């Protein structure tokens, strides 16, 4: 029955395609009986094709009029010249219908298994959290979902754990979406997590890695920010925590770590995009990861995935001194970007953060490195500024596909160089 209703609604929506483009719904309030009469007259003018959703009855009671796009100037002029007050209730009727149709199609999709999840689209937080449960359900002996804490707005911080057993095995940590506007990263994270699950038992490298190590993957690392990019500001970067004494919200979660914290490679202004926060690990989203990694005690690699710029970076950002194993990190980065470029020709630059991009204080990979996690890397995915954060969804699968061999290179290196 549900399927039939959805189908009928889809047919209805499809038939209405483009019929209401640019039409608006105006809420009109007649001030006196004379204006009520004027509205009725307006409705009788056939050529204007005004469609009353709620008829004008009495003064002071609102009437709702759907006005076709081409009649808008005439109708608004009529209302204004007669001093009839109105407001625009629906700016574009077609857009509303399209949105509803999209929602209906989407809600159909969430019921299926991972084999029909649309990896080539950007998803909402609910869709991603639902997909996580489906992934766990599809691979119960490999994947589990753990919660490492809560966000500022009390959303769960979920991490996917890939493990074939053992007890507190050496582990690799991956995160995407710490800067929520970098939508390509969460999308790549979903594809990659699915790939890891699929390839265990098939790909020799993935199998070798998971036979002795665990992988922890946090895909929606900043859920409050991510929701905000959907609901309000697509280009939001920070957390959503309130800053005492400031009208500006949020802390840059990648300047909030205890490594060179508070230096000039971050900002002390709460209104800045790189505000480091009142103190290191002030942000719940950051503290949860730091506590998890320290508590685990056996994490050998942290791979933090960002966009954009097409780079593969390693510490330090807070000082110019190279890391003790700079040569090893440089060689590994060189190999990884070469294998990435081999897929579609996408060129990455690589090097330490200080050398390659800019001074940055309080960043995750520097903290990880200084806490004994030697193989800490930051990816900056596509592109180099043409679309920037607004990367078309058609590039999701190519981006994830080309990044995969680079990620594998790092993970295999970690496996083959235990410490």
């Amino acid at each position, binding site marked *: 029955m549900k399927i039939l209703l959805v189908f009928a609604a889809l047919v209805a929506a499809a038939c209405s395609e483009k019929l209401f483009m640019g039409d608006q719904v105006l809420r009109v309030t007649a001030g006196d009986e004379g204006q009520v009469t004027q509205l009725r007259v307006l409705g009788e003018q056939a050529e204007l094709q005004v469609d009353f959703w709620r008829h004008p009855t009495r003064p002071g009671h609102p009437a709702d009029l759907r006005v076709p796009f081409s009649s808008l100037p005439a109708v608004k002029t009529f209302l204004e010249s007669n001093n009839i007050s109105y407001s625009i209730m629906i700016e574009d009727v077609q857009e509303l219908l399209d949105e509803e149709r999209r929602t209906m199609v989407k809600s159909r999709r969430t019921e299926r298994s991972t084999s029909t999840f649309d990896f080539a689209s950007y998803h909402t937080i609910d869709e991603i959290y639902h997909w996580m449960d489906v992934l766990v359900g599809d691979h119960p002996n490999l994947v589990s979902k753990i919660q490492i804490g809560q966000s500022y707005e009390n959303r769960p911080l979920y991490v996917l754990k890939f493990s074939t057993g053992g007890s507190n095995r050496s582990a690799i940590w991956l995160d995407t979406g710490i800067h929520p506007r970098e939508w390509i990263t969460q999308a790549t994270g979903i594809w990659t997590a699915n790939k890891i699950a699929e390839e265990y038992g098939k790909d020799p490298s993935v199998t070798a890695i998971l036979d002795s190590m665990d992988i922890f993957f946090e895909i929606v690392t900043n859920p409050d920010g991510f929701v905000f990019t959907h609901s309000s500001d697509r280009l939001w970067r920070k957390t959503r925590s309130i800053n005492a004494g400031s009208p500006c919200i949020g802390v840059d979660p990648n300047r909030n770590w205890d490594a060179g914290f508070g230096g000039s490679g971050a900002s002390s202004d709460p209104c*800045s995009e790189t505000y480091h926060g009142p103190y290191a690990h002030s942000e719940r989203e950051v503290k949860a990861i730091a506590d998890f990694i320290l508590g685990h005690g056996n994490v050998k690699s942290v791979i933090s995935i960002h966009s954009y710029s097409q780079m593969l970076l390693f510490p330090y950002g807070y000082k110019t001194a190279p890391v003790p194993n700079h040569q090893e990190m440089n060689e590994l980065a060189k190999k990884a*970007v070469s294998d990435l*470029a081999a897929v579609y020709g996408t060129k990455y630059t690589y*090097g330490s953060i200080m050398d390659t*991009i800019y001074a940055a204080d309080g960043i995750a990979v520097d903290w990880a490195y200084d806490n004994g996690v030697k193989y800490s890397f930051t990816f900056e995915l596509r592109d180099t*500024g043409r679309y920037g*954060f*607004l990367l*078309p*969804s058609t590039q999701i699968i190519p981006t994830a596909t080309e990044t995969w061999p680079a990620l594998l290179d790092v993970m295999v290196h970690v496996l083959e160089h235990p410490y």
Partner: protein
Amino acid sequence: AMEDPPSSFRFRRAAVVAAGLIRYRRGGPGRGLVLRDVRRGRGPDIDDAGHKYHLEFVLEDLNDKDSTVNCTAEVLYHLGNRNTPPDVQFTTEGELKSSSEADHRFYNQIKSLEEELVAENIPDSHGNVPPALVPVRLLAGAAAGYVIWQNSTEDTELHLAQIKRVKQVKRSDEYLEFDYVILLHDVVSQ
């Protein structure tokens, strides 16, 4: 892959400035020139005037992916007055493919609209640009190129993030005029 010298980000920043100016001068609704690659960089040469970079780079036409053009440029960031935009001298190799057909098509399309064009959020959240609005975006890119050039320093790398709003301005002559509100993203300060 080319080995990247440690100061490569400085060459990229300077190339972005030069690309901005070139896009302003040569770009339009039918041609959008963006930086594809920095081939070579030298500098900075430091003297009393400021910091000067010498660059070889490749631009590509957003409207025609296979169309690339090799460029050289000298970019001088002034030391004294930070409000002075960088000096850019550039050369482009060979002839750029003509964009007059695309420009005319855009002109006629806009002229034939019954109401002045209004649009928002280009690209949208999913990176989509409706085909009809591609020339509108390329035109914004050309204008943004000017703004980027004028507002760049050695510590910025500016890109056009999104057109928030574009409104065509009603005119009584044959010119087309557009009012844009654009968002620029600075990679350095975010």
